[in-house]
């Protein structure tokens, strides 16, 4: 059962990612695209966790953790860029 569920969830996350990409491509504004990318980051964490579960290994946990941390920083950086131009001022 778990395998089936995992497949379903995989599919859900996959569809989510595609939806994110849709928004990323369509925009229309830059903040929209940032939002889409940010969401993509988070959804990739889901993907990695699911992958780790399906393979039964925790080796990829750190990758997920880092995406969480770094995705935040990069979103913040882009927003700061839009707001102030100079992200380190």
């Amino acid at each position, binding site marked *: 059962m778990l395998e089936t569920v995992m497949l379903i969830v*995989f*599919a859900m996350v*996959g569809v989510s*990612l*595609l939806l994110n*990409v849709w928004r*990323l*491509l369509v*925009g229309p504004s*830059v903040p929209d*695209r*940032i939002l889409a*990318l940010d969401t*993509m*980051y988070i959804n*990739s964490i889901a*993907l*990695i966790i699911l*992958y780790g579960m399906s393979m039964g290994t925790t*080796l*990829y946990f*750190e*990758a997920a*953790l*880092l*995406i969480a*941390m*770094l*995705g935040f*920083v*990069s979103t*913040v*950086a*882009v927003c*700061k*860029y*839009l*707001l*102030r*131009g*100079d*992200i*380190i*001022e």
Partner: protein
Amino acid sequence: MTLLWIPLISLLGSIISSMTGKLTRNQSTGLTLLMPVIALLMTINLAPAVFAGDVIRETFTWIPLLGIDIAFRLDGLALLFVFMILVIGILVIFYARYYLSSNDSMPKLYAYLMLFMTAMLGIVISNNVIQLWFFWELTSISSFLLISYWWHKSEAREGAIMALTVTGAGGLALLAGLLLLGDIVGSYNLDVILASRDIIHAHAWYEVTLILILLGAFTKSAQFPFHFWLPHAMAAPTPVSAYLHSATMVKAGVFLLARFYPALAGTDIWFIIVSFTGLATLLFGAYVALFKHDLKGLLAYSTISHLGLITLLFGLDTKLAAVAAIFHIINHATFKASLFMATGIIDHETGTRDMRKLNGLWRFMPYTATLAMVAAASMAGVPLLNGFLSKEMFFAETLHQQLLGSMSWLIPILATIAGAFAVAYSARFIHDVFFNGDPIDLPKQPSEPPRYMRVPIEVLVALCLVVGVVPNFIVDDILTAASVAVLGGVVPEFKVALWHGFNLPLMMSAIAVSGGLLLYTQRRHLFKFHDSLPSLNAKKAFDKILFAVMKWSEGKINAIENGSLQRYITLMLLVVLLFASWPLFEMSHLGGEKQLTPIDVHNAMGAALLMIGAFSTVIWYHSRVISLLMLSVVGLMVSIAFTRFSAPDLALTQLTVEVVTVILLMLALFFLPQHSPRESSSMRVLRDIGISTGLGIVIASICYALVTRPLDSISEFFLANAKTGGGGTNVVNVILVDFRGFDTLGEICVLGIAALGIYKLLANLPLLIPDRDSEGRPWAKERYPMLLASISQSLLPLALLVSFYIFLRGHNLPGGGFIAGLVTAVAFILQYIAHGSNWIAERLTINYRKIIAAGIAIALFTGVGSWFFGRPFMTTWFEYFDIPLIGEIELASALIFDIGVYITVVGSTLMILASLGQLTADEPKGEVKI
């Protein structure tokens, strides 16, 4: 040792004279003269042995591998030349003492002259052809220096360049020829070469070799059509001309003919090339000489003509011709040197050399005039003078040759015509200068020169006379010895005498003399005729050609190196495409034998996202922020691909690097335009699409070919030894810090250097800081959004904890110093973003430069540490310790190494970002920082 000393002494003389700057002119001259005099005495000492038929040899090893020795060989020919070079050299030096004005540097002239003498001596006594070439080129260099002695005059500079160009070109040909010759014979030794006539003649390369060597000889001895440099070399001071154009430089060319006569001559091709060149030069020089108004110009073309005569003699197929050639070499040296010196006196005393102004000098300087007239008569071939003797021999030999078969009679006739012209220009030299009315507008009032200035001329003129009257007494020995050397032992009977009875040659002489006088008296018509000819200024042509070549090169270079990076990259990529695709087509099957893995949905989706990201980056490249966001998608997908394909370390690294890169790009984007304009034409875009698609397909094919093949690699070793030998279970990390830790050391150096470089780049950068974004919006008012500021403070300790965690586990699980370092750096970057660089600067007073240095130092010294255990650099050490309460822990040198990595990464990354941040930290926006 004696032979070596001859050029060596002369070289010493060069050095000595260059240091006589502080001495008086007489002292300087005396010191300079000392050396050639010694050399002359040494040569005289050797002469009897040579006359007796000995060949004196000396060899020192220099570069045995290349067959280049320092080898000397004194035979008759060499002896003759050594005498000539030294005697005339001594006279010229003496003469120059009086010639040079007080403004001219005497040591410089003497040093160059002596250097030149060294080179000439070297040529004539070389027993190794490469060494011969060595000195040959030295004459080119030193003559360049001599001709350009008055370098502030443009004609001196240009004349020198022209001489060097022509003789340099000939020198290169000569080198090629000599190398071929050496290869044919198997040795560069002259003895061997001279003894290998038959091998050489039979060899397939003979013709090429001969032509190359002759090119060397002809350019040096100013043979037509390479003669044009010589008149322009007259820009040199007259003593230099006297030396270069009588006894040395140009004689080097005919020396070469004589030197290789035994080995190369005797074939039809030799006779044809040499005689025709000689004949053409003889006629051409004699003809042009008549029309020169400049005294030195006349002498220059006369020199060309006489060298043509000598060359022609070497090209005639009779043995006596060679003897005549040698004899004429001596005679020409004597009368030409004296004529040049006389010209120098005239120039010196009157301030001009223009024969249209110089008239009736007999009245002002009768003594000098007499000397000059005797020498000129010798040049014309008047009996009782040496010039007559050799010219007689020449005429005789032109009658004996069979070069042109049934047309051979043409040569004596042409020779006679040339003789007539020689008489005519000699007559002009005498009549036009010393008689022919009164001088016109002379810059100076002429008078006799200082007494001693005439001494050298007196000596030479005396020689002309003595040789002319009693030739046997003076030149027999040396001429015989030289002829033996040239003809290889079998010297035909010859008799140098004033009177051979009434014969054809004498008649030719008579015709030449009377014809010459007739020509001179009728010169007005001739001049008119000559002026009507299209004038060919060799110098202008040479300059034009040189200029054209340089212009053409410039055009080519500007067209090729047009400063367009796009072209350079395109070229490189095309080469890559060619190299990578061409072997692909040779493959029978692209794919390998490995079982393919089926595509699953996740991979397909990941691939789709990655491709979408890639294409979007390209599609949106005009709006840079969007393009950058799209690139982030690609980066994210690449790291997910690494997770998918069992490379957690790579995924972590890729992630962190990607984020830092994006931040950097964002920082850059602030200073750069926000949009890329559309500049490429559609053709260009199509072409670029072609190239990039082609490369993509090729690389993809290679990639496919690789991944579908089984691999047998050295990695088994790493897997087997990671734990036992490296003390860690994360094999990738063990490779990084142990097996291939050296790479990592290099890698952190790269990172550190990059940071230093960036700091360097940003120093004193004048930047226009935009005060609004590309759509004209002013920047937001809030510099440091409050919520962000407070949350980032809380995240910092957490991030440090995580980075410590990642660092610590690296050896056994995915992680390690590099990733940890980047995580730490990112945590600090967040602080920079949230609080600004001034805020950080107040709190973090660390010199990043030192941090970087410390990091690399730690890594380096960890490696060096193993020396104390007698092991090579970077041999790792690890041990497990059981500590009460805590349990078993592992200590490894690799961990310390990794600390170095960590520190370097943190230092470098922060240095890069802080330098960038500092750029704008204190600057109000919208202002230019200088």
